């Protein structure tokens, strides 16, 4: 049988982050306007495989996704074995700006989901000049913890099993089985304590409720796309952000859940492509 190759290529980048050497896995496909993609907590850049494999996106965009340190094929920094991983807003911001600079991206479009959607709001507020547009998926200003996060990292509960099971209901009801279980597999593959460490940012450190209204969409356009079936970042929470940020554009995606780009790429693209087209037209004028 003849093998088929996807147009995605991957490389390992070495760079210093937070004063320590890191080895970061970066993959990309396509040519044109850079589109920098941020994965959800406890997962990795494979969530954007649908975008990277769709010619409607890659004909005009260089789609780039990196695995955050500790995630996917990126390593934790040397010394990790005696540390507790905890993601902070400051680290997350630094990581995105440093990796974008190292790749010499010229004001990329930023797209981020869940924790990536939350940091997208931070970046829209603090670094609007670094991006030509920002797309927040499942982006809310804050999420209250709704289960005991300690269950995500304790020796008597299998980390992969529990992480997959925690998020399984966040996938929308219409997602194709193959994409649903691919999405959950990424969660099942996460390292011990990594999902929990990401949620430190999502549920505690990254709360942006008191500042989100200060986002100025004249400096950087902001698009918000959220799945109807997400009970982690609910449509109401995204609509609250949209209502407090003048000029932002919001879409609630029927039938989709918390991982739109990964759980059902085809359905998601029907919402994303018009946004990319709009951004393309704005940048020309």
């Amino acid at each position: 049988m003849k093998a088929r190759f996807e147009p995605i290529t991957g490389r390992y980048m070495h760079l210093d982050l937070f004063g320590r050497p890191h080895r970061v896995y970066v993959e990309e496909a396509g040519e044109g306007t850079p589109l920098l993609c941020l994965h959800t907590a406890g997962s990795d850049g494979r969530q954007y495989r649908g975008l990277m494999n769709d010619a409607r996106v890659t004909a005009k965009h260089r789609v780039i996704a990196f695995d955050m340190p500790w995630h996917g094929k990126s390593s934790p920094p040397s010394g990790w074995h005696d540390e507790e991983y905890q993601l902070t807003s400051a680290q997350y911001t630094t990581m995105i700006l440093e990796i974008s600079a190292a790749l010499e991206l010229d004001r990329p479009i930023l797209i981020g989901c869940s924790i990536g959607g939350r940091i997208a709001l931070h970046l829209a507020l603090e670094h609007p000049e670094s991006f030509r547009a920002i797309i927040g998926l499942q982006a809310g200003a804050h999420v209250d913890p709704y289960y005991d996060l300690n269950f995500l990292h304790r020796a008597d509960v299998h980390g992969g099993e529990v992480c997959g099971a925690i998020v399984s209901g966040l996938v929308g009801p219409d997602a194709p089985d193959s994409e649903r279980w691919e999405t959950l597999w990424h969660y099942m593959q996460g390292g011990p304590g990594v999902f929990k460490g990401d949620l430190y940012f999502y549920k505690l450190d990254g709360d942006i409720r008191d500042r989100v209204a200060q986002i100025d969409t004249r400096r950087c356009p902001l698009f918000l796309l959220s799945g109807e079936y997400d009970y982690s970042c609910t449509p109401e929470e995204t609509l609250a952000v949209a209502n407090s940020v003048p000029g932002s554009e919001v879409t609630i995606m029927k039938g989709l859940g918390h991982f739109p780009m990964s759980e059902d790429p085809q359905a998601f693209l029907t919402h994303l492509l018009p946004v990319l087209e709009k951004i393309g037209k704005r940048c020309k004028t």
Partner: protein
Amino acid sequence: MIETLQQRVNGDEALVRRGRYLTTSFLLEVGQTPWLIQIFEGRIVSVTKGPFVMPSSSFALRAPAEEWQKFWSVRPPPGSNDLLALIKRRVLKAEGNLQVFMSHLRYFKEALAKLRAPGVAA
């Protein structure tokens, strides 16, 4: 309907296999009605309707009957499609030794979703 849980779970070989290290009993409360469910190595061995005087169980799942009804509908609406969605909305209370529940979370989610109409994915 709850009493059909035994047959629906035990009829799913893959689900029973995933629960092969699970031996426990838990209380399922549907409004005011308690059910005691006993599991041995992934198989449900009994589903008993209360009221009970002194039921022993490792944990309990308690929600109003109308919330379970939405959860068990053919296409549950957003916010009712998953045990954790109910917990997030504070309508489902999980109480007791939750290590048993969380270490077999996929099992319990899929087992209870078996009470949806036949032929519907968990």
